[in-house]
């Protein structure tokens, strides 16, 4: 009996993992949420409302890099609606531009990762990272909730 329960539980867990992996809307929303939290930390630091912390900067940039590199694959044709998505149809009408913007975002984040060694270099690189957010949200994101 114990074994049966274990097997069922293991199967359920496996199914859950598969389900998460095949739910691009949930996955990209989670990534974007983490991106937001990371960007907020960087932004507050750049404004001086929280103190500069190099380790936290590196960690936040790693989060952004993760989001920028993983996200383009999470907008397949069958993920245009549902799941509370704020994605606009314009994404699929301009997929090349959309992907190029993520590529540029990743490039800017990686340049920041390589170039930021202290507060002065942080102030130099941070704006180029932030400027990616608004351009994409303007064209491709609609508030849904």
């Amino acid at each position: 009996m114990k074994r049966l329960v274990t097997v069922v539980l293991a199967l359920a867990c496996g199914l859950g993992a598969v389900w998460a992996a095949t739910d691009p809307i949930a996955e990209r929303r989670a990534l974007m949420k983490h991106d937001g939290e990371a960007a907020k930390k960087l932004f507050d630091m750049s404004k001086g409302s929280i103190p500069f912390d190099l380790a936290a900067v590196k960690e936040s940039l790693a989060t952004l890099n993760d989001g920028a590199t993983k996200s383009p694959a999470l907008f397949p044709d069958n993920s245009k609606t549902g799941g509370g998505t704020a994605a606009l149809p314009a994404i699929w009408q301009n997929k090349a531009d959309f992907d190029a913007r993520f590529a540029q975002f990743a490039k800017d984040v990686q340049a920041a990762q390589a170039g930021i060694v202290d507060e002065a270099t942080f102030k130099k690189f941070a704006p180029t990272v932030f400027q990616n957010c608004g351009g994409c949200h303007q064209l491709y994101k609609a508030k849904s909730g």
Partner: protein
Amino acid sequence: MKRLVLVLALMLALSAVAGGALAWVLSAPKPRFSAAEWAALGLKGDAAAGRLVFYPGGCESCHQSPGQDDPLRLGGGLELKTPFGSFYPQNISSDPVDGIGGWADVDIANALLSGVGRDGQHLYPAFPYPSYQRMTPGDVADLIAFLRTLPGVHGRAPPDNVMFPFSFRRAVGLWKFLFFDNAGLRPDPSQSEQWNRGRYLVEGPGHCGECHSPRGFLGETDSSRALAGAAMPDGHGKSGSLRSGDFLSWTDADIVEALTSGFTPAGDVLGGGMTAVVRNLAELPEPDRLAIAVYLKSLPPLGPSATAKP
């Protein structure tokens, strides 16, 4: 019997004629100023001051020539899809033929304040004159002076493609009779100067309610739920509520930040139409953004609309 039918038919015909005549009278375009009345105000527009009316007014969000990035090239032609059809904002550049370079100041003032075009015809309220009519004549004169400094752009926008009955412009007159509050905006002396400035920017040039207030069956804004968030006119997504939900926890500083950089307290960056709004409001002096925050925070909270999409 025959006579009764005749009398009834006559009465019907008469009431139809009377109704038609009444509708015709009620739907007449009513520009706020005659040329003499406008001239009597003695306003000498100040272009530098007008720049600070232009940006909160967000003229370029609709009138900027599509396919280029200069917000000061106002050739028009962007398609605005709405439930009432497609509107194509006009060329409002200073071009004397295709733009408004040949319009007198009073013509432009009447367009902004009364929704009446140069030829005396009604303008569709996709042009947000229901909000702009709250602007002071002084601000309007300054704005006109600023618009006249902008480059002329050749070419005209396509004609609007509007569904019946609004395909007849005169029908807009009846819409105005029902819904157009042509009262301007009087300062509330019981409130601070800062609050009044904020309300003026939000309700007047900023025309926030055109997207953030829900609309009724005929596209009129629902004043009882003003600024409580609404489905976007183009059918994609919705505008945020400024009277419920997360927004209620935003501080004045949070609002000022969001209107300056686009960053929200949750780390989101405002998108859609707000991207241009943020870019525009960032042109204002900070006390103006703070005034907007103070006014928005003073609005009575509301629950989400029962008809709003989840």
